[in-house]
C-alpha cells in the first residue's frame, strides 16, 4: 500500500499540494484545496466523493486534461503541472488510457477504428495500429464485433470497446470516470470483473466514482470532500466510511 509521501521509488503518480481554482461569474470556486497523494505502479485506486467534492476536477488533473492552479503533479517521473496544451496531448496519448462514463466513442467509426484512434495520434502506420487494435479488442473479447459501429453494440460492449481503446496504447495508467455509471448492474459487474483482470495483469487503474459499492471492490480508495482528502485507505473501509482521515494519505 502506498504511503502517500512521494518519497518512494516506482511511484507512478505523485501529486503535491494541488489546488484548482475556477472563476465562475466573478466568484472564486476552489475545487481542489491542497491535495497530496501518491499512486504506485500496479495499484488499483478509487477516488470517491459526492457530487461537488472535486473528484471530477481531480480526474481532469490526473488525466492531464486540466492543469492545477498550484502544486505539483508528477506523472511517470515528469512534471506535467506546467506543460503546454500540446505537451499534455502527448502525455495523454502515451501515459493515459481513458475510460469515460459515456464511453465517448466516435459514432461514425467502427469499434476497430475507435480503438485505433490513440495510435493514429502517435503516428503509427495503419497496418500496425490495426493489428494492435485487434489485439486490444481480443483482450476484451470483442473481436467478433470489431466492424460494428457503436450504435450496433450494447452498453457493456461499448464500454469494453472504450476499455480496449484505453489499453491499445499500453499506457502507464488507466483512468476511468464512473465506468459503470451508464450500465445496468449485471453489465457493470462484468466491467468490474474486467478491471480485476487488468489489475491482476499488472495495470495501474484509477477509478473516479461516486458509488461506494464500486470503490469497495478496489484495494485502495481516496475520499474527497470539498476539495480535500478526507480518507485514504483500503477501498472497503473508505467506501463504508470506516477508514479515518489519511490512513494512507500523508
Amino acid at each position, binding site marked *: 500500500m502506498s504511503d502517500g509521501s512521494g518519497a518512494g521509488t516506482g511511484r507512478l503518480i505523485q501529486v503535491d499540494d494541488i489546488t484548482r481554482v475556477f472563476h465562475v461569474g466573478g466568484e472564486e470556486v476552489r475545487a481542489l484545496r491542497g491535495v497530496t497523494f501518491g499512486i504506485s505502479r500496479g495499484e488499483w485506486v478509487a477516488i470517491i466523493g459526492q457530487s461537488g467534492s472535486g473528484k471530477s476536477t481531480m480526474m481532469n488533473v490526473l488525466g492531464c486534461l*486540466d492543469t492545477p492552479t498550484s502544486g505539483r503533479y508528477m506523472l511517470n517521473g515528469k512534471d506535467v503541472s506546467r506543460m503546454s496544451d500540446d505537451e499534455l496531448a502527448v502525455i495523454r496519448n502515451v501515459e493515459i488510457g*481513458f475510460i469515460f462514463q459515456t464511453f*465517448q466513442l466516435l459514432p461514425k467509426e467502427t469499434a476497430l477504428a475507435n480503438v485505433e484512434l490513440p495510435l493514429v495520434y502517435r503516428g503509427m502506420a495503419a497496418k500496425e495500429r490495426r493489428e494492435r487494435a485487434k489485439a486490444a479488442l481480443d483482450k476484451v473479447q470483442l473481436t467478433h464485433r470489431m466492424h460494428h459501429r457503436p450504435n450496433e453494440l450494447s452498453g457493456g460492449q461499448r464500454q469494453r470497446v472504450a476499455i480496449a481503446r484505453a489499453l491499445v496504447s499500453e499506457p502507464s495508467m488507466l483512468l476511468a470516470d464512473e465506468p459503470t455509471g451508464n450500465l445496468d448492474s449485471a453489465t457493470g459487474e462484468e466491467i468490474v470483473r474486467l478491471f480485476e483482470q487488468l489489475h491482476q495483469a499488472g495495470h495501474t487503474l484509477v477509478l473516479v466514482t461516486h458509488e461506494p459499492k464500486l470503490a469497495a471492490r478496489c484495494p485502495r480508495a481516496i475520499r474527497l470532500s470539498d476539495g480535500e482528502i478526507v480518507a485514504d485507505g483500503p477501498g472497503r473501509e473508505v467506501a463504508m466510511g470506516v477508514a479515518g482521515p489519511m490512513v494512507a494519505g500523508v
Partner: protein
Amino acid sequence: MRAFLDNLRLALGTFLGNPLRSLLTLLGIVIGVATVITMMGLIEGLRTKVNRDLGRLGAHTFQLTKWPAGGFGRFNWAKFAKRPDMGLEDVRAIEMFCPSVGVVAPSDDQGGQKVSTVSAETRPSVRIIGASTTYPMTSGVSVQSGRYFNEVEGMDGRNVVLLGVDVADLLFPGIDPVGFEVRIQNRPFRVIGVLQRRGSFLGMVSMDNQALIPLRVFQQLYGKERSLDIDIQAKDPSLFRKAQDEVTTLMRRRRNVDPDQPNDFEIHTNESVTASFNQLSQVITIAGIGVCLLSLVVGGIGILNIMLVSVMERTREIGVRKALGAKRRRILGQFATEAVLLALFGGGLGVGLGFGLVFLGDWMVGFPMSVPPWAVGLALSMSCGVGLLFGIYPAARAAKLDPVEAMRNE
C-alpha cells in the same frame, strides 16, 4: 504525410457522410468555377475564330475609317462621332496623291433592312452594303452566280443588287434569282448576282444575310452625310507600310490635324483589328475572373458556414480526439483539410460543368470553344485557396476547444 493521409480519409468520410449538404454548400464554388471555365472556353474560341474571320482584309490591304475597331470601356464614342466623315472626295484624293496605293474601295452599310419581292419579304435584318466596283478586290466578297456590277452601273448608280445566299434562299427558294426584281426601301432593284457563301461571323451573325448595291445608289437611299469605310490595297506587299504612311499624311493634311495632335481617323490592318480584339478579350478575361472570384467568395462563405456548423456538431468528437492525444495542429489540419477538400471537390464539379457547357455551346451553335489548361489550373487553385481561407477560422476554433468542455457537449 501519414497525418495528412489520415486527415484526408477523415475529410472524405465527412464529405460522403453528408453528400447533399456538402453539394449544396459547394454550389457557389461550382458556379464560380463553371463560369470561369465557360468564359475562358468562350474567349479562347472567340480568339481562334476572330483570328480567322477578321482576316477578311486581303493581303497588303488596310482600312481607313472614322471609327475605332472596337475595344471596351475606355472609348468615348461621342468624341469619335464628332470627327469629320470620310467621303468620296477623300477616296479621290487617295487615288490621286498616294503613289503606293493600288486599289481604293470605299463602302458603307446599313443594317436592319427589308428586301422583298412581290410574294415574299425578309425580316428587317438584312445588311445593305453600298460598295464600289473595286470592293471584291479588297473585301473577300466573291460572286457565286451572275456577275458583279460594272463601272458603268457603279458610276451611273443603276438599281442593281447582288444578294447574299441567305437572302436569295429566302426570297427565291430553289431558283436562281438572277434577272428577277427585288425591292429595297420601295425601290426596285434587278438581281444581277448571288454572293458566295461566307458563313457566320464568330458563329453567331450570318454574313450571308446581306445585299450589295452600288455605293452611289446606297447614298441616294440612305443619304450622303455618312462616313465611308475605305479599304486600301498597296500596289505591292513591300509598299504596305509606305502606303499607310502616305494615306496618313494625306488625311492629316486634308483634315487639318495639327502636328502635335493624334490622328482623327483610324487605320485598321488585320493585325490592328486582332490586337484590339485581344485587348477586348483581356478585359473579358479579367471580368470573368472577377465574376469567378465573387462566386468563390460566396462559396467560401458557404464553406465557412458549414465548417462552423460541422465544428459545432462535432464538438464532442473533437474533445475525444484531443483527450486521446490529438494536438492542436492535428485538429487544425483535420478541419482545414476538410474545407480544402470540400472546395476542391466543388472546383472539380465546376470544371466538369464548365466543360459540359463549353461542349454544349460547341454542339448547339457550332462555336469552336476550347478551354485552356491554365484556366483549369487557375480555377482549381483558386478553389483550394478559398477552402483554406474560409476553412481556417472554423478549424482554428476547433483546435482551440478545451477537451473537457468539448466532451461535455451534447
